[in-house]
């Protein structure tokens, strides 16, 4: 890497700098190479420019220096403690020799990707909020799963519902925009997708009373921040079927529909794909929607990136009564078979762990495949209509059912990865069940909260291993099991697939593992300081391939602590990244 990181002058006095120089250090990257739209469409193999590497959300790298033969030689290159304790799901990005690392409380850091030296740090000044808004204060401690790069900017979405655009060179704010009113409960918990000249993002906080009737995927002009369009996931005036699906419940009495994971994008059709979460309140008995399917909750939405108009939708779980939401990553897969190109959207969208494949141009259902133990979906028709197990629909408050998977099990935010080399989709899953009962609890008199009570998480009968790495053999006709790897701890990180024939993923027992994509054989593991977390990724610099492994706390890591006493969580959050590489005498990295 070129030497182009120069220390900047500080406003602090010499005496102050002497006392606490590292805390005030602020450097500037010279000659930062802009991330162009072309680069976003076709990222260099050596870089990791967005949430899951590419617009297709595959979580796949073409780098192959770290492979089945060499992975055992990995050595620690450097490590870095993140700037904040608390839960995080960091997705580090690398461009032009710089790693951009975000953690909770909207802190972004730029690090020298070769040495691990800090270049700059941005700490978002979160708006002052009254003590009465303690939930919003809690939101600040929640994870942010990604940031975005575009031209010479880093684009951040914040807990106080802002888009903040930083100069990549120095971390200074270029501009910011208040998108929605955080006083109503709106906040960002996922990062943006930069596509079609827009910042396409999705808001969270949609289960809070003040946000009734509006949960949005939104597009803002990437240069000006002007809003271009917004799509309301629980109120679509252009679709009578959507309105009717709420059983007469007016929009102002609807909640939920949060898009919890950054979407995928197909530049060929200018379509952005997003997954949508559960309805609120959780139980139809309380939300008043009867047997309505409550669209577009638990659905995949395909939106025109230019206009925000709905192209199609597919609902993976109608009538959700158990908070088994389905917002997780949508993966775009192209396969050419007998001269015909098949353009699929593949996903394990929700906590019940069922895999789906759709034709991504039409939304047509192709196939589905069960993975973990689940009892909520009784069948899926040939045309893709999902039929729920109506025996688990509550008829009375306090009625309790054992529901599999659990609200904190199944498929959670940890993203799977698809390898075009093996045409396999690798999905981290957790076996779990818990009792669910609709209930109401009054803390403050007359001011009750709560709509569903969850019992402790238990393993399904006959299963002693919670963790499951499921490899699915994918084609347009089917998604059959290629291999399974079962292990006691829950997976707590996303998955990375590489052209080295490997798939990487980590667990609550602090182990980062590498499996052979073809066979499922465990070929490498390394125990680290805390549960493996976030989104492992890889990049290459100066002919060497690096593997980045985040560790620390997330909702998944903390919820596992009560399930397996023999896998204790460490003291402190341990939020860190570990960067591995091969010994320097190993052959030069290449992209196949």
């Amino acid at each position, binding site marked *: 890497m070129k030497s182009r990181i120069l220390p900047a002058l500080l406003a602090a006095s010499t005496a102050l700098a002497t006392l606490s120089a590292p805390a005030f250090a602020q450097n500037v990257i010279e000659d930062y190479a802009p991330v162009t739209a072309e680069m976003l469409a076709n990222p260099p193999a050596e870089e990791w420019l967005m949430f899951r590497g590419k617009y297709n959300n595959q979580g796949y790298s073409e780098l192959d220096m770290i492979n089945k033969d060499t992975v055992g030689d990995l050595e620690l290159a450097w490590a870095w403690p993140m700037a904040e304790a608390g839960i995080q799901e960091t997705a580090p990005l690398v461009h032009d020799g710089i790693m951009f690392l975000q953690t909770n409380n909207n802190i972004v850091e730029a690090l020298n990707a070769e040495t691990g030296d800090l270049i700059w740090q941005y700490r978002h000044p979160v708006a002052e909020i009254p003590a*009465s808004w303690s939930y919003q204060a809690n939101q600040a401690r929640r994870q942010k799963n990604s940031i975005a790069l575009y031209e010479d900017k880093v684009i951040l979405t914040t807990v106080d519902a802002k888009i903040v655009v930083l100069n990549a060179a120095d971390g200074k704010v270029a501009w910011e925009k208040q998108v929605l009113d955080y006083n109503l409960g709106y906040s960002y918990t996922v990062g943006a997708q930069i596509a079609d000249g827009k910042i396409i993002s999705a808001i969270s906080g949609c289960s809070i009373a003040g946000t009734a009737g509006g949960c949005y995927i939104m597009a803002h002009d990437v240069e000006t921040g002007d809003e271009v369009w917004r799509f309301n996931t629980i109120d679509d005036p252009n679709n009578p079927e959507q309105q009717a699906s709420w059983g007469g419940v007016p929009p102002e009495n609807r909640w939920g529909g949060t898009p919890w994971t950054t979407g995928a994008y197909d530049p060929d059709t200018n379509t952005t794909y997003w997954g949508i979460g559960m309805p609120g309140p959780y139980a139809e008995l*309380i939300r008043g929607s009867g047997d309505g399917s409550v669209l577009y909750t638990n659905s995949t939405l395909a939106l025109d990136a230019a206009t925000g108009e709905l192209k199609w939708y597919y609902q993976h779980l109608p009538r959700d009564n158990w908070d088994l939401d389905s917002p997780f990553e949508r993966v775009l897969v192209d396969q050419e078979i007998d001269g015909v190109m098949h353009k699929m959207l593949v996903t394990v969208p929700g906590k019940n762990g069922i895999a789906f494949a759709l034709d991504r141009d039409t939304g047509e259902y192709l196939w589905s495949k069960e993975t973990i133990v689940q009892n909520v979906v009784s069948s899926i028709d040939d045309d893709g209509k999902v039929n729920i197990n109506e025996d688990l629909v509550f008829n009375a408050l306090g009625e309790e059912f054992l529901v599999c998977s659990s609200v904190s099990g199944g498929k959670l935010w940890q993203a799977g990865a698809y390898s075009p080399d093996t045409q396999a989709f690798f999905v981290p899953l957790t076996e779990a069940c818990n009792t669910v009962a609709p209930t109401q609890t009054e803390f*403050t008199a007359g001011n009750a909260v709560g709509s569903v009570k969850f019992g402790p998480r238990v393993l399904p009968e006959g299963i002693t291993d919670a963790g499951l790495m499921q490899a699915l053999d994918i084609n347009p006709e089917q998604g059959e099991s290629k291999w399974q790897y079962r292990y006691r701890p829950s997976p707590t990180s996303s998955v990375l697939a590489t052209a080295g024939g490997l798939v990487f993923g980590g667990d609550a027992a602090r182990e980062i593992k590498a499996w052979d994509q073809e066979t499922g054989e465990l070929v490498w593991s390394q125990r680290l300081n805390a549960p493996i977390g976030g989104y492992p990724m890889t990049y290459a610099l100066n002919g060497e391939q690096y593997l980045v492994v985040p560790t620390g706390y997330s909702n998944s890591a903390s919820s596992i602590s009560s399930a397996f006493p023999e896998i204790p969580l460490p003291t402190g959050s341990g939020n860190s990244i570990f960067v591995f590489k091969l010994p320097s005498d190993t052959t030069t990295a290449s992209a196949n």
Partner: protein
Amino acid sequence: MAGNSINACFDVTSLGRPFDEAVAKAIGDALFLEVNVVEGFGGFPLNGDGFMDELTLAMNNTCDVFMGVSVSANSPFSEAFSLTRPYATIPFVLAVSDPQWQSLGDIPKDRPLGTAMASMGEMQYITWAQQQPEGQSWVRYPYPDPIKMATRVLDGTIAGMILWQPALARLQAERPETEALRVIDSAPIPGAAVSVGALVSSRNGFLRSEMDQAIDALVADGTIDALMAEFGYQGLAGE
């Protein structure tokens, strides 16, 4: 608790917040204690995430008592906290604007009702409705905001609303346009009422005992009744 003063905390989103403060001051007068009013917290999501964490922090750090909590058989509070005896028991009510209706049974079944979201009154209605033959109950929509719900009663979107009576009293005290709302008999739905008390640390049995005695005295001498009348509350002192 320090010397002759006591820190009384409140959920700032509590529907009975001003009444609870008045009761706290009356209890302080009875015990010859100065009451320091401390704003607590609020603004939680519908599922209550974070409430118990914040409550525990507040009770450990700041509050001697936390006023205005629900005293019920299945208390959600941890054993680290004790509930006082209730200082008031206040009902949920059905409020309408149509002068023709004298009870819930007068409302046509094709008109929807509103309920205070996740409330005891809503729970009572759902439980009753689930026991009725199809078509013999009213469609119901949940509302977290009493002002929005009252607006929808007044504009005819919903026929009536079931809410905690202090919420209605506060609406009518603060918003003249809600004057047209009146309470009618909620039969055939069984009545629902909330007993209101305070929370103290389980380690401070002395304070709880003193609070209970003070509440007894304030109920007996009519102080609580007078405060309920002042705030326009229905229901009973103590219970």
